[in-house]
């Protein structure tokens, strides 16, 4: 059943008329062509599709579009301002914290959300928060380094 939904994505207002059961992930990718947010499992178990909705981390594959009505969404494409990267993006680059990179946008969005809630996370808090995100290249050690580095950068 089609519905009309208003949402703001990376500061841009959109009115989307489509099936309200479609996931936010699918609408971002297929309607808005914001393909930086990736499909990983469709069931909220890998974190690959993480975005911010009203500043909080959500797994966009699990959110029907109808629930995003009136919400503000930030995707990986919305983090940098012009040529200047977000500190979390910088930290991932500096640590070389990606292999295939397919999980990277989800990892970065999760980190941005974490540092908003906990600017000084302990290692245990980082692991606990990030544990939903899968990396099948198993690049976890460098990703953990990137999260720690990002926390330091954002405190400066």
């Amino acid at each position, binding site marked *: 059943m089609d519905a009309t939904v208003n949402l703001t994505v990376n500061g841009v207002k959109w009115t989307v008329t*489509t*099936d309200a*059961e*479609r*996931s936010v992930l*699918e609408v971002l*990718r*297929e*309607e808005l*062509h*914001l*393909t*930086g*947010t*990736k*499909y*990983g*499992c*469709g*069931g909220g*178990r*890998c974190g*690959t599709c993480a975005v911010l909705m009203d500043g909080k981390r959500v797994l966009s594959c699990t959110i029907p579009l109808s629930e995003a009505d009136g919400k503000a969404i930030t*995707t*990986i*494409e919305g*983090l*940098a301002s012009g040529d200047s*990267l977000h500190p979390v*993006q910088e930290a*991932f*680059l500096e640590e*070389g914290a*990606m*292999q*295939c*990179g*397919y*999980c*990277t*946008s989800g990892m*970065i969005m999760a980190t941005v959300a974490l540092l908003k809630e906990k600017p000084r996370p302990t290692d245990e808090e*980082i*692991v*606990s928060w*990030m*544990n939903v*995100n*899968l*990396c*099948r*290249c*198993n*690049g*976890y*050690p*460098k*990703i*953990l380094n990137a999260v720690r580095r990002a926390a330091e950068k954002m405190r400066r």
Partner: protein
Amino acid sequence: MIEDLLDETVDPQLSGQSDESCQELKLSRRTFVQLLGAGLLITVTEGVSLGRRSGGRSRGSITVAARVHLNLDGTITVMTGKVEEGQGSRAQLTQAAAEELRVGADRIRLVMADTALVPDDGITAGSRTTPYTVPAVRRGAATARELLTRLAAKQWRVDGSALKVRDGAITNPKTKQTITYGDLAESKEVAEAFKQGVSSDVAVTAVSEWKVLGNSVARPNNRDLVTGAHRYPSDIVRPNMLYGKMLRPPSYGATLESIDLSRAKAMKDVVVVRDGQFVGCAAPSSFRAGQAIEAVAKTASWKTTTAHPSSKEIFSYLKERARSGRSRANTRGSTEQGLARAAKALSETYEVAYIQHVPMEPRAAVAEWSRGNLTVWAGIDWPQRIQGDLARAFGISSERVRVIVPDMGGGFGGKHSGEAAEEAARLAKASGHPVCVQWSRAEEFTWAYFRPAAAIECKGGLDSKGSLIAWEFTSINPGSAAIDTPYNIPNTRILSVGSDSPLRQGPYRCLAATANNFARESFMDELAAAAGADPLEFRLAHLENQRIRTVLETAAKHFDWPARRKRVTGDVGVGLACGTEKNSCVAACVEVGIDRRGGEIKVNEVCEAFECGPIQNPANLLSQVQGCIIMGLGGALREEMKFEDGRILNAGFADYLVPRFRDVPKIDVHLVNKTDIPSAGGGETPIIAVAPAIGNAVFAATGVRIRSMPMRGGLLKRA
């Protein structure tokens, strides 16, 4: 053809390194004119003679122009058929070209895996990029540099050996005359010179002289990965593109007898295709395509085939169907006599489950037809192979098919086949629109191929002094990778035996070596225990291979093996294992924590030493080794496909448990840089020591030997 490919790459006879099966593939004279992303025009007007060998080793000669192109802005475009899927080939091949062209890595624009633009460098698999494609690119770049130097020498009428090439400029030190690659970019003489074949004996830069290789060059497109700008195969968007979904059988081998497509046909903007067993829908959204498939699936009538074995009975099933094996070349002496003479003899069977590769990006492809020509963007490991497969599937010449592999989201040996590419092409042809197909996670878990299951029968005999005098090793189903023992044993009999796999199986990270090395290194530990020897001393006493000795001693030293071995308790154990495959060597020491009541095995620490010759990119190699160690934890402790009646029972992350952040142990990696041999690949072998070292540590703590992968902690509860 897809099945052929899998058989071929899993077949031990074809995974070898012999040259005999080299076959030349002559392509007709043709012209490539392509605009690259940076607005650069590439024209290659050569009769290209590409060598193609089964199993993926590119041979034969290509022209310099097919490999190297000078651009006006001073950058250099370099072309390769290899794909980037996270293993680091983009940085490494960029470094290889930069090294020989005497420029910084930032001057190289690497075009990868586009059949319209690149030479066939074979399949991206088997750790072959480092030993074969890096040298091929280096020879291409070195030949280009020599030709350019020769042209400058001719122009200046001096001896070419007197000229210096540095930072993309050729200089005559005496006259201070200089000409840059950019100056030469449009030269007709260069175009003529680059028609020459790449020299097979051109000198490449010695390791001691490396300026770009040997450094931790970052992945050239890494910024696009952190901004979301990079388009993976599943991210390609074409004008008026539709999204496709396929009808899948309810179980393996089920055939479609009848189906009513009318409900899907009645849906707005939905295209429905049936061609024999193929039923697919394309629609303006994945959601709509999925709804259409659901609507017709309810009307489908299926004929299911004979009974399938379940995962519970898979090992007896494979053993019952084992075929006669081929003896390995290093079989020697008489194991019958050796075992009969032995003071102690052991006989055990190890079992290894089917597992999935689980790349983060499931199979994906976008297909577009235009005037009878097909272009496909796909996440696959060998663009030229899939190009041929598609040409055959649609009855057109290969010239009409272009396959492009954007840097993709993981593979681990699991993306050799092009199912999504063919599905997208069928739907695109029928609908008249470009079509994107991305497999769901459940589809990837069910319909992609699996790492083979294995049953491995081991027999070993010790003499009265505790020396190994007999070794029998019969490996049923996984293949022959790392099957030969590196240990010095007078009587050996080693067999790789095929069987009838009920699941579709194919390559994996280091393939059969994950199974064969698990069995061998676990059984070596059993024999060490039977001999009353320390596992490290026992191995070293039988090991002549100096490279393996070095990594074993390096790992043991950094782990402080002798002292920690003495501190083993019922709750904390240590174990080690080593191995060699694909011309690289690995050893790991691990510490496990045991919760016998809860039936839990927790890996606390892994110390691994790895050596693959001269290290070309230390940061990337470290990533590969770390990734192998943690991926290895999954296969060691949790991952296994569960199946029954031809259905996968755990086709999702809820029931198929892969390593997560919480599982990451303390990891201590030691990369041994051995500079007096050629470089070997490093993305696979580091995985093979992990599982046996864990099993050996569990035994050290508990006295319980777990002879299966995954090693279920529950076995410790009963023991």
